[in-house]
């Protein structure tokens, strides 16, 4: 009997080992998050939410990340489509370049952006002449978020477009569709889930951005910077409720959006 059980365990050694290793990393992710959320009392969280500074920081974070995602959609999806449909020398290099923002330290990314969009530099000057400033301003937050988060959208959309059979577009052409119509009536509807998932990832990544925004626009203050400031100025007890609130809001939005994407998949 014992020998039999032992044999069964032996037969599943790989599965059991991997499960145990996986459990460690799952706990590593969940424990800090849950501990933080539950260490602030609900009433304290509610009071924090009523603070004008906190509310406006959270609101600013959500909508600047949304703006960055909108810009990403407008400029990133066409690039994703192009990369999915064309082969050209140096394509690998371009693809690697797109992912660079993911791997560079984000404070360094912020400095790099400052060198282009600061008021003493080319793009900064050009935009200044039409009344848009980046340093310590909302547009600065948006481009910092855009820079570090747009790779997620481009990669996801590109993979989506690659999965759309080119022949579907070709058939659409023979049925009278122009290349534009074939894109909007065939490729885009077939790829929307990948684009949507990529947008959610991009938005989430934008919301969580700290380093690049810190360099470009400490003020107006987004929520991650507010957490940092409270920690620095007043200590852990004051940073905790804001951080918990931010995590709860992100989780709710993320779970909601993901369920939309997956519901589409089952249909």
């Amino acid at each position, binding site marked *: 009997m014992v020998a039999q059980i032992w044999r069964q365990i032996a037969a599943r050694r790989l599965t059991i080992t991997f499960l145990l290793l996986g459990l460690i990393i799952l706990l590593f992710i969940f424990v800090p998050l849950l501990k933080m959320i539950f260490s602030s009392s609900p009433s304290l969280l509610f009071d924090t939410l009523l603070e004008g500074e906190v509310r406006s920081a959270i609101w600013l974070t959500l909508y600047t990340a949304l703006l960055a995602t909108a810009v990403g959609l407008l400029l990133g999806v066409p690039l994703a489509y192009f990369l999915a449909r064309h082969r050209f020398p140096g394509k690998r290099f371009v693809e690697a370049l797109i992912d660079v923002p993911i791997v560079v330290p984000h404070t360094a990314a912020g400095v790099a952006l400052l060198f282009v969009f600061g008021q003493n530099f080319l793009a900064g000057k050009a935009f200044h002449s039409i009344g848009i400033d980046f340093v310590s301003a909302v547009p600065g937050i948006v481009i910092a978020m855009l820079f570090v988060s747009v790779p997620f959208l481009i990669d996801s959309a590109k993979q989506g477009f690659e999965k759309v*059979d080119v*022949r*579907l577009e*070709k*058939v*659409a*052409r*023979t*049925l*009278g*569709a*122009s290349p534009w*119509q074939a894109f909007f*009536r*065939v490729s885009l*509807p*077939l790829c929307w889930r990948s684009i949507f998932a990529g947008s959610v990832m991009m938005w989430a990544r934008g919301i969580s951005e700290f380093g690049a925004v810190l360099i470009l626009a400490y003020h107006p203050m987004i929520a991650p910077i507010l957490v940092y400031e409270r920690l620095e100025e007043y200590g852990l007890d004051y940073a905790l409720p804001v951080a918990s609130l931010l995590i709860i809001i992100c989780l709710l939005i993320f779970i909601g959006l993901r369920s939309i994407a997956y519901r589409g998949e089952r249909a």
Partner: protein
Amino acid sequence: MIEIKNLAVNLGTFLLEDINLSIEPGEYFIILGPTGAGKTILLESIAGLHPIKSGEIWLNGREVTKLEAEKRGIGFVYQDYALFPHLSVKGNLLFGLKQKRRSKGERQLIVEWVTGLLGVSHLLERNPSTLSGGERQKVALARALSISPQVLLLDEPLSALDPHAREGVQQELRQIHHRLKATIVHVTHDFEEAIALGDRIAVLGEGRILQVGTPEQIFRQPNSEFVARFAMSRNIFAGEVRDADDGHATITIEGMKLDVVTELRGKLHASLRPEDILISQEPLRSSARNCLRGTITHINDRGSTLYLTVSTPLDFICLLTRRSFEEMGLRVGEEVHVTFKASAIHVF
């Protein structure tokens, strides 16, 4: 109807060039070639879906070489159907009609007409992913026909289907061709399919058109080693299938009667693989229904195997291993018996 003049297409690793074809109105034209010969690309070039290197394409007396695909009025059907997965069958059929801005009433009429023609009316509300291969191919055909194309281009339309569905769709194709007097260009790698459907066949290989002719001409008088190899892999005969006295069927080929197993009747073709024929020096007493006496007229030595031509007087090409050949001591002029089962003959 379709004129292709000096067409050259770059296929990356090689060039398709010197393509000259003249396809008549209402003709069922087959382009036959092995996998990788560039058949699909040639078809896409005609449809305007693939850039060409040089040459001209004329459609109904009008040059369309530089015309966009969406303005050519060419129906296209791919091997694996390419139905729009995000649309229902009806949505697929309406795609081209909406694109061409037909009125609602007109769209309704055309959808009823094409679905009736192909017998897919009951599938309208279904999602393409729930259809069988044969159903998908019929829907793809219906979709291509919905725009009343000047020409129908078919890219291996039967290759992805199981044998049963293949017969059904092949029947549909014959009917469409017959009833609509449609001009059809159909590419395939299947020699039998080409012979069964084609009014004329163009053999594509080694980057060019090697031979154009009727099915008879292609398999009786192949003009090159390449075409011959295509034709050699089978014994192909034209004949007439009738009911035999015992309820079975026979095919009469040039006055010679052979037992066959088939539900089909009428003027048809039959094929027999060289490896399905047994050669013996004495008549064989076996379960095989067909046993004929003939003379070896030709021996084609291929090393470990040999192809013998046995004239009964109908010529049969038979495959033999060298070992059997040497043990039997066969020579040209020797009398032998050829034996094969009725079920080894494929009627099409």
